[in-house]
């Protein structure tokens, strides 16, 4: 069965520090992978997606993620965190049926940023 694991429930970093959020997936075929961000009281905003090709994908707000098939991972990174990045981050895998994806989400990682 498809699943997504985000091992870190909470992460705290200092503003300006680098960030890496971990994501591991379980999926039988080539996965479609996504990172979404949720600010308090807001919906889910797409940060970036991986479908195929280059395993390092760039997203919005300076985020990037690297797909590593051998490790079944899709970790999210940012070289320098800003206070406005404090939010909850969700990794998701698209379980593809026909022409669409059913998204299976991880439990999320809540990011706190110290000034």
């Amino acid at each position, binding site marked *: 069965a498809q699943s997504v694991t985000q091992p870190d429930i909470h992460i705290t970093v200092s503003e300006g520090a680098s960030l890496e959020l971990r994501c591991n997936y379980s999926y039988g075929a080539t996965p*479609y992978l*996504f990172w*979404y961000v949720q600010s308090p*009281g*807001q*919906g*889910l*905003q*797409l940060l970036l*997606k991986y*479908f195929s090709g280059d395993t390092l994908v760039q997203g919005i707000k300076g985020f990037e993620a690297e797909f590593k098939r051998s490790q079944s991972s899709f970790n999210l990174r940012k070289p320098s965190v800003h206070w406005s990045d404090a939010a909850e981050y*969700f990794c*998701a895998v*698209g379980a*593809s*049926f*026909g*022409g*669409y*994806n*059913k*998204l*299976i*989400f*991880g*439990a*999320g990682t809540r990011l706190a940023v110290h000034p």
Partner: protein
Amino acid sequence: EPEVTQTPSHQVTQMGQEVILRCVPISNHLYFYWYRQILGQKVEFLVSFYNNEISEKSEIFDDQFSVERPDGSNFTLKIRSTKLEDSAMYFCASSALGRNQPQHFGDGTRLSIL
């Protein structure tokens, strides 16, 4: 940039009452979805909808739930007889045709069952 809009932002309902959550997907999108997030838990898939019929539904989506696209713009989720455990944030999403099209989410409706 076009966005998915959901109304109301917060709905309070007595247990046993019917509730309808409304969504306006992005206008040229063809696939529509509902997800829910119980407080403190992960986002869970409920149902997907394409070409005026359900494509797939989860085990959560039992006979108490239904979806409808009553006109060319709205997409609704109805819960016929609400239970306390239906309290959650409900997200609507839509995507364009094609497996590599990402889903775009609305801001959600917080449903509180008393």
